[in-house]
């Protein structure tokens, strides 16, 4: 079991009906992903080039570098096909399912980015695909729901609980328990039972494999700090993985501080998604990890302005790297993230996802502590978030935001 644990974290806490599937997946992971059996990894890399558009650039950010008097480099995962890092994992897993002889793909999605990426990968590889999505998320991410449908996948609304990511994960696990013999569950982050956390990290590690080479080529040195936003943690682990052994490189996982870091035990709500910063060890969705929970161990409803960070757990490897001191868990609140969204859009002409904006919020607040050379992962582009950004910006008085009066005059409350 040693490969399934990260220190005390990880493991396989799943219903018995899923264990054979998990053993089958572990075997496939070791053969195809770790040992490149039948040329799996070669095909994966080829498809990530031709279909996905890899490698993504590492771009020197001139305005931000001048603003902070620090060399800031952007790893442009927003330029990956689909507009986010999610395709790395989705394509890897759908391809693996094909190698395993599975006939059907299921996946959960929160913000819709993973659902979108999985639907694209399934269409590309000609596999039937069903996406589970909480009804709250369906309401706030309508364009992504439509993108999933356009790619030919089904969307199953999840109505239990608050109708967000954790309910969607639970529901997808239920489907898998029923259909395990012919179906592969493409989990969307470095969470869940082993081998998912390691496998998803390995697919996402293309990010740091490229970034580590690119930064040395361009800056002639390794960076002093690497920043990535963290919800479940897949872009985080992908961005950190090849830097973990570079002990001089500081790694910052920027979580969603939401509206407050406190929790409301009575209501079962944590108005943030900062599991690494404030969570306690527990067991959620198949793994032991850091979890937002009440004193009984009931899982809290998390919150973030960014749907993609809105999750009460986090990848077990990240939890371990935080405990061992290798990764610094930090967070910024909704306001700071929203300001950073506008700043990156205006200064660099890059409209980031709200998830990504958290990393830039931290850069704004702490740039003088990060050293001379900083890499920030632009995990996704922000087109999907524009409706949310308009609403949230109109609720606040942000000096950095564009004049919003045009929306009040033209759009009124309809937006």
């Amino acid at each position, binding site marked *: 079991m040693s490969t399934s644990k990260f220190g005390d974290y990880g493991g396989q*806490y799943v219903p018995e009906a899923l*264990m*054979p599937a998990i053993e089958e997946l572990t075997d496939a992971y070791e053969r195809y992903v770790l040992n490149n059996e039948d040329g799996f990894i070669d095909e994966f890399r080829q498809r990530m080039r031709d279909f996905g558009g890899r490698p993504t650039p590492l771009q020197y950010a001139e305005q931000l570098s001048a603003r902070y008097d620090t060399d800031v480099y952007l790893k442009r995962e927003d330029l990956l096909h689909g507009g986010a890092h999610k395709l790395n994992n989705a394509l890897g897993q759908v391809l693996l399912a094909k190698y395993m002889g599975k006939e059907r793909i299921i996946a959960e999605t929160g913000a819709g980015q993973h659902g979108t990426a999985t639907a694209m990968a399934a269409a590309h590889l000609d596999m039937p695909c069903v996406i589970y999505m909480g009804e709250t998320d369906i309401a706030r991410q309508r364009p992504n729901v439509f993108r999933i449908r356009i790619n030919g996948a089904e969307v199953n609304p999840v109505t*239990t609980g608050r109708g967000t990511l954790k309910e969607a994960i639970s529901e997808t696990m*239920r489907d898998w*328990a029923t259909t395990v013999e012919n179906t592969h569950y493409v989990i969307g982050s470095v969470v869940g039972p082993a081998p998912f956390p390691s496998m998803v990290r390995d697919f996402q590690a293309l990010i740091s494999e490229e970034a580590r080479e690119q930064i040395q080529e361009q800056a002639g040195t390794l960076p002093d700090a690497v920043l990535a936003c963290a919800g479940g943690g897949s872009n985080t682990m992908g961005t950190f993985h090849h830097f973990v052994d570079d002990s001089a490189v500081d790694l910052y996982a920027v979580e969603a501080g939401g509206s407050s870091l406190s929790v409301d035990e009575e209501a079962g709500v944590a108005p943030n998604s900062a599991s690494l910063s404030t969570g306690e060890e527990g067991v959620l969705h198949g793994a032991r990890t850091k*979890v937002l*929970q009440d004193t*009984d*161990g009931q899982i809290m409803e998390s919150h973030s302005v960014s749907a993609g960070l809105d999750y009460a757990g986090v990848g077990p490897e990240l939890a371990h790297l935080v405990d061992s001191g290798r990764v610094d868990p930090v967070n910024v609140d909704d306001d700071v993230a929203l300001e950073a969204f506008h700043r990156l859009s205006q200064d660099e002409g890059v409209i980031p996802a709200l998830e990504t904006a958290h990393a830039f919020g931290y850069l704004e607040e702490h740039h003088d502590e990060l050293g001379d050379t900083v890499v920030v992962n632009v995990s996704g582009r922000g087109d999907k978030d524009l409706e949310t950004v308009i609403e949230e910006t109109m609720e606040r008085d942000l000096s950095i935001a564009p004049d919003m009066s045009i929306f009040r005059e033209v759009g009124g409350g309809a937006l």
Partner: protein
Amino acid sequence: MSLEASFADEPAFVPYLAAGDPDYESSLAYVEALARGGADAIELGLPFSEPIAEGSTIQEAIVRALEAGMTVDRYFEFVADLDVDVPLVCMTYYNLIYQYGDEQGPRPFVRKAAEVGLSGFVVPDLPAEEAGPLRDACDEFGLDLVFIVAPTTEGERLERMREQVSGYVYVQARLGTTGARDEVSDYTERSLARIEDWDVPKAVGFGIKSGDHAERIVSAGADGIIVGSALVDIVAEGHENDDATEEVAQRLEDKARELKQGALRGAGDRPRVE
């Protein structure tokens, strides 16, 4: 009270209800009604917010119980308040067992469970590979640990479970989550055959909803039947229609009797091997 003894003389009827569904007082009455109706042991659900092994029926029961204020401490009170003389099995998810008390791990929870008179555990998200600490605590305090054998459980995994199981083994009649189904699953006989030589009683669950259904399962070789969703449905319907607690309790008692009688008929049908 020994769990295994519940299966000794005749096929056992093991019902499930979520404690506190739809509220504390009604739930006490419902569980007691099941005992009157012939339950030989009762699986009493401790509601967890992420019940990944449950179908929608039990999932909704868990939501109702949590909304009505069920907590871990209230659950222990509930067990102490229950007036039944059959063994009670705590069915819950590992995080609640793991978090309880000030000492890390499952020990404080198991100690408390023993204090209030619980007889054992079923933990659907705890496979044999991760069960060591809970098994140890159960041994220390004299409680049983029931494992679920799925249609897909074979080979080494089966052996690992056999080494750790006590009380009874929960044979999952079909793939998927809990929930009442019309047809008997194909897997029951095959699954029973795989564990034929195990010493512990074999109780079959997942999808049993009628006396006839219970009869068929027992005549296929089960030592007992586990029924959850078909009973939770009665609780849910009573709650939706605002029916009186006594009425709903009577329906549960009648259903329990039907299931128990079915199980007894099934034993009569079975060729006796002496």
